[in-house]
């Protein structure tokens, strides 16, 4: 029991990566109007993130379930066509950054997490 309590006490000081797993409702900025190719057919919640520590798989709710690997480094979430800053407490987490769709200028977005990760899929 003492050993276990020691382990639990030691673990309290460990800082894990910020949680981003779950479904996200995305609001795009004003510059998104001219870029229909990437945003057409996008349904809310527009992003689904499956996270394992610093690694994540970001899936776009575009009908094709386009997905890509992402990396979480401190407050930064980085993927091939997505860059965002993570903010807020675990229960009120937000993402703010930009997405780059093929043939478009980067589109600013803000996302709010709908549900914390459940089941990972």
């Amino acid at each position: 029991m003492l050993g276990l309590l020691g382990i639990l006490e030691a673990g309290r000081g460990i800082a894990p990566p910020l949680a981003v797993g779950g479904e996200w409702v995305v609001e795009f900025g004003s510059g998104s109007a001219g870029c229909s190719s990437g945003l057409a057919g996008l349904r809310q919640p527009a992003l689904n993130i499956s996270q394992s520590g610093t690694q994540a798989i970001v899936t776009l709710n575009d009908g094709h379930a386009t997905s890509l690997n992402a990396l979480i480094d401190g407050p930064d979430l980085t993927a091939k066509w997505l860059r965002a800053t993570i903010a807020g407490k675990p229960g009120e987490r937000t993402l703010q950054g930009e997405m780059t769709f093929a043939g478009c200028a980067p589109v600013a977005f803000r996302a709010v997490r709908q549900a914390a990760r459940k089941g990972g899929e």
Partner: protein
Amino acid sequence: MTLNLFHLILQVAVILVAARVVGFLFQKINQPQVMGEMVAGILLGPSLLGWLAPGISTALFPAASMGYLNALSQVGLVVFMFVVGLALNPTELHGYGHAAVLTSHVSIVAPFCLGGLTALYLYPRLSDDGVTFTGFALFMGAAMSITAFPVLARILTERGLVRSRMGSLAIACAAVDDITGWCILAYIVVLVRVTHAVRPAWVTIGGSIAYVLIMLFVVRRFLPAFERAYSKRGRLSDNLLAVIVVLVLASALATEWLGIHLLFGAFLMGAIMPKTQEFTHYLLHKFESVTVVLLLPLFFAFTGLRTRIGVGGGGAIWLYSAIVIVVAITGKLGGSMFAARLAGMPWREAASLGILMNTRGLMELVILNIGLDIGVISPAMFSIMVLMALVTTFMTTPLLEWVYPARLFMAQVDELQKNVA
């Protein structure tokens, strides 16, 4: 026929064929059928089919149809956990004295502490700040401590070891381990769910205590009526069997409503059923066939579809997997073996007991699915632990044959029979 129903029936057919074929092949290499069924589930998921033929995988298991497969597999698990509880008889531990008590305690404590220690390394790498370290570490400990009681019993039966001193001891210790493991897991589920729960913590905790007391001191008193009805006619009527099913479902619903998990209710219902050998065998026979043949393979396939062994994460994932497997084996096999040796068992028997206790099998998969559902482990951690469950279950039979060959056991039985004569 709607598209979803068509998909579901097609999925069930494919899963059953894969489970039977791979199970048959595993039996050919002296592995229990259930080991093959578990591997079949993994092969149908992204680890193999999804990797080799993503188009076929997506067509066969579209994301939209997963809810139906999950629901069916959960029904199967409810019945299966009732069967596991039914087969458990903790009073079997009595009569094995010091060896059983010491081995069963150490076989929980050693892997639990090592699991917690491993959590210190894995928490910042495979978890996130949505999960507390306490929840993660306790879950790792519980997942490392579990022994697959049903698989263990099947291996011992297939090898004719079930009535040996070592076999009986292993079953008794596994029974105690499973009960302890599920109690710890119930605590973890409450701990994790309380932070996001709909109802206040005192309802969950107070309700859980009240539920257990009602089951042990009220419901249990009425259950011998089923046994008496069975003794009178040598069977139970369909109506009485339906009442038992309803009681299992009601118990499962009660624990789910309380915020523990529906599987605990089903397990406890089985555990408090009368334990007369004939009655237990009768109920096992009634409930086991459909569950084992039809519903459990669906659970294995659903687990396989959530498992991504070696997919993503690079070489680090393999390193984490190796660490988890070594820790799991050291804690469970090593802990049980040294405890049994300390209690006076010869080295060969102590090592065999350790090997048997290290079998995690499908009980581990059940626990891991709960962990993933409540979000206490990440998808990568889930895959690593599934791999650990497969490795520790697969190694049991060959390692046991190496340490305690069947010919040696049979020779001991012959000698014993000669002495008796």
